[in-house]
């Protein structure tokens, strides 16, 4: 399973490299998630991630994207909550330091809207997700904005007493804002 994922990622990476990946402007890009604690929306940021993205809005079907998140960089802006989130019942970052998403299929929905589909791996568990996103051309490069919802319990995130979804809702929204610098370099 793990090996298969690794091979998959490597292929995706190579594919992205081959198509000529954008460089990502990390200090302007953000991956956040919004959970609901006692029905209070709580936003957290994944402060470190790397992304290989090759995206041409004119040819979305050739696009490739692979995102790897350093799960230990999860930040709820609360030291106590961060410690808990990194611990075993939640992300268990020692065992599962990385979360990954690989877009294996991207299609245009029209009107600057697109849809990416692919496996999302968190805490060693892989499930297919679909995420709508928008792409906006900038003078240099472009901006990708999207969001989708996952069910945390499907990834065993929040085990034991934390399985109680009355306290922390099962549904968690993942939002991303990725700034791409420059057009993908033409294949040489």
């Amino acid at each position, binding site marked *: 399973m793990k090996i298969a994922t690794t091979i998959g990622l490597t292929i995706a990476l190579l594919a992205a490299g081959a198509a000529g990946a954008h460089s990502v402007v990390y200090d302007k890009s953000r991956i956040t998630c919004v959970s609901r604690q006692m*029905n*209070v*929306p709580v936003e957290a940021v994944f402060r470190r991630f790397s992304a290989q993205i090759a995206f041409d809005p004119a040819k979305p079907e050739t696009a490739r994207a692979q995102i790897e998140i350093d799960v230990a960089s999860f930040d709820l802006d609360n030291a106590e*909550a961060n*410690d808990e989130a990194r611990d075993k019942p939640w992300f268990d970052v020692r065992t599962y330091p990385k979360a990954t998403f690989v877009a294996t299929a991207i299609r245009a929905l029209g009107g600057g809207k697109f849809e990416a589909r692919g496996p999302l791996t968190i805490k060693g568990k892989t499930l297919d997700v679909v995420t709508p996103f928008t792409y906006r051309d900038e003078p240099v490069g472009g901006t990708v904005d999207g969001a989708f919802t996952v069910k945390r319990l499907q990834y065993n995130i929040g085990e034991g007493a934390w399985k109680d979804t009355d306290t922390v809702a099962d549904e968690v929204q993942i939002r991303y804002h990725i700034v791409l610098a420059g057009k993908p370099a033409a294949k040489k």
Partner: protein
Amino acid sequence: MNTARGVTYAAPAIVLHWLVFALICGGFALGLTMTDLPFSPLKLKYYSWHKWTGVSIFLLAVARAAWRLGHPAPPLPATMPVWQRRAAAVSHALLYALILVIPLSGWLYSSAAGVTTVYFGVLPLPDLLGRDKALAETLKSVHITLNYTLLVLVVVHAAAALKHHFGDHDDVLVRMLPFVKLREK
């Protein structure tokens, strides 16, 4: 209830007084307990319940203040010295002020800490302040200090009421008690 001489408090005043007292006890106990709990579902629950209690106290405090403005308190015993009357007036005013200001300070603290208050998990209250850690720490101290001030005042208030009842043998305590008929002189 309201006799010709207006000796006793009217029912709404009595109900609101004891309801606010019960909620203050609950909110105070939750506040003391929740901060020491390890990070857990229970802790999140207690924080929410504490905030819902605070919002409820604020709403009831507004109702009490409105009621009181239209319905003056029954007169104090004629035998009470002037300094005691003044002390009672000042401490009552402070108690009213605190039951309004303490929930507000908690709401401000929660806002500055970046946590929206959602009343009963249903009604999100607007965040009064933007996220600001330094300000949140200050507001936390303010919230705690005001609460201990309230604790001291409540103890003085209750001690004074007991002194009226057992020391002065007047009706000052009894007229605020529910289910008790004022004795005839």
